[in-house]
């Protein structure tokens, strides 16, 4: 049975290497990581700054999603972290790491974990564009 090594929301920088180290073990043959980074453009428009807002339940729900992924796939260990507050361009907003005996399970579980976090965790992205306009993403 797989374990959840880490699952947290934070306003600090998230290090991919830290989550990768958290899922590492001598029985794991494969570690797959994902880093969702803040881009300087979106739909062709220049993004000048970006901020995430997290609902108070985000931490608990992130733990729940990580547990579901650990149970659903043939993996050894799962870690996930989501940053909120202002995030400089190029830094990670969402980081996931999965270890498994075999690579296919690690790839599948990591992609599934990212999909579920995006679908289930109450976190919102606010973008300010170079022209001064702003938007809450996904909300017309």
């Amino acid at each position: 049975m797989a374990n959840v090594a880490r699952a947290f929301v934070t306003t600090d920088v998230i290090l991919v290497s830290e989550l990768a180290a958290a899922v590492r073990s001598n029985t794991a043959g494969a570690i797959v990581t994902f880093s969702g980074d803040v881009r300087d453009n979106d739909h062709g428009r220049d993004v000048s700054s970006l901020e995430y807002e997290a609902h108070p339940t985000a931490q608990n729900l992130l733990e729940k999603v990580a547990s579901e992924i650990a149970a659903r796939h043939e993996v050894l260990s799962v870690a996930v972290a989501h940053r909120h507050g202002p995030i400089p361009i190029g830094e990670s907003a969402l980081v996931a790491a999965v270890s498994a005996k075999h690579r296919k399970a690690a790839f599948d579980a990591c992609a599934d974990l990212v999909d579920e976090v995006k679908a289930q965790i109450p976190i919102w992205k606010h973008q300010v564009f170079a022209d001064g306009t702003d938007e809450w993403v996904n909300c017309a």
Partner: protein
Amino acid sequence: MAVTVRFYAAARKAAGVTELKLDAATAMQVLDKAVETHPNLAQVLPQCSFLLNEVALHDLNTQVLDNATLDVLPPFAGG
């Protein structure tokens, strides 16, 4: 019942306030009263999901107890 409505992200922007305190018997009534005083909410509410005392609310006809908190959550955009 005295209810607190909390607005997040685009819902907060539409409401223009972080939270409202009002009197209502059901979740639907809470939202109707909120739209009355903050009409811009009408555009964002159809896209929102709701938490009643931090638990997902699936039926807006649910009755609210005194001192309940209703959270208004626009579509998530994490990651």
